[in-house]
């Protein structure tokens, strides 16, 4: 089971000016859509991929696991999140 967490120095906030989730990191900002913000809020080091997908599917239409995996892999390549070992 793979769990993710934000890397040290990366913060997730809700920006009231843009009314959007934003990932803040040493080199800049990533403005998130609603789904992205929901996923990252679950990157707490203890929630595995299947659980995240289930949570999303309750809020939206079914979210394919491979889409979720691609999204998280892309963030990991940008050194914004890392694998956790709970």
């Amino acid at each position, binding site marked *: 089971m793979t769990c993710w967490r934000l890397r*040290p120095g990366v913060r997730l*906030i809700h920006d009231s000016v843009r009314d959007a989730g934003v990932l803040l990191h*040493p080199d*800049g*900002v990533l403005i998130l859509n609603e789904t992205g913000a929901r996923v990252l809020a679950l990157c707490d080091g203890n929630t595995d991929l299947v659980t995240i997908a289930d949570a999303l599917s309750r809020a939206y239409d079914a979210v394919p696991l491979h889409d979720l995996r691609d999204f998280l892999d892309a963030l990991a390549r940008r050194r914004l999140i890392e694998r956790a070992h709970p």
Partner: protein
Amino acid sequence: MLAELTHRCPLRCGYCSNPIGRHSRSSELTTQQWCQVFEEARELGVLQVYFSGGEPLLRRDLAGLVAHARRLGLYTSLITGGQGMSADRLADLVASGLDHVQISLQDADAAVADAIAGRAAVHRRKLTAARLVKEVGLPLTLNVVLHRANIGHTRDLIDLALRLRADRLELANAQYYGSALLNLPALLPNRAQLDAAETLVQEARNTLAHRLEIVYVRSDLHDGVPKPCMHGWGSRQLTVTPSGDVLPCPAAARIPGLDVPNVRQAALADIWFHSAAFNRFRGTAWMPEPCRSCPLKEDDHGGCRCQAFQLAGDPAATDPACRLSPHHALVRTLLQDAESAPDTLPYRA
């Protein structure tokens, strides 16, 4: 947002891009004025504050400013030369919510680094500061301005970043403003030096991707391709100087006829949206040929306005770094001179 808290600095680097007639201490914004600036910035939509200078640690109220910015929800980075950083000072900053520290290095070799910075024991204090930052668990970026005197030490700089367990290493070719412009003949590397450094960076990026992020800022003069300066004038970033002037880029104060707005006279949102200074080169309508009909105009924004002014004498000209610029011969001459220039250390004028 870049918050230049002070232009006072204990170092004397010959590549410094700050204005040569720096602001004095008495003209600096007060603690309260800075707090107000951060509040207005957050309301405007600013998400990041880089506490910079000069040397921001020379401001005794730094921790309080960080705390205020952080309470507003801003991401706080300290951009420092590492002098005057003690365990106690850092503990205060951590308690204030500081998110990230960037420390500048002049070279990997202590003697060369101190000669470039113009002061003894500078490098040793920087290494101590870097270790303190890692000990408290903050992400650490090391920033090195590359020029003729240190670009040959790129491998050593990467090794040093690994030894210090830095998270990021920025290797940035010098930008030629302020003292750097005066020292350009002594700073500009030749083509062979630049190629060797870029090869090393590429190799290191491939082998170290999981340990160290290496950010490389290319030399637009050598490339013949202008940099997308500030991602466009008045597009994403603003700088507030020690005295409260608000600039679309840190070097813009030198552009003639720029009616520079100040936070003491106007609200930040008003400055951002409505000031003549922020609208002067915004978008593409101001562009001359060859930019106007160039398919890359939305990518590079015509390059750097300050460089256009300094090299071509016209801030509205195509950046002479661009090989399509009618002034590009100026840059070719600078590069030819660099091929035969002697290796001397640049000191601040």
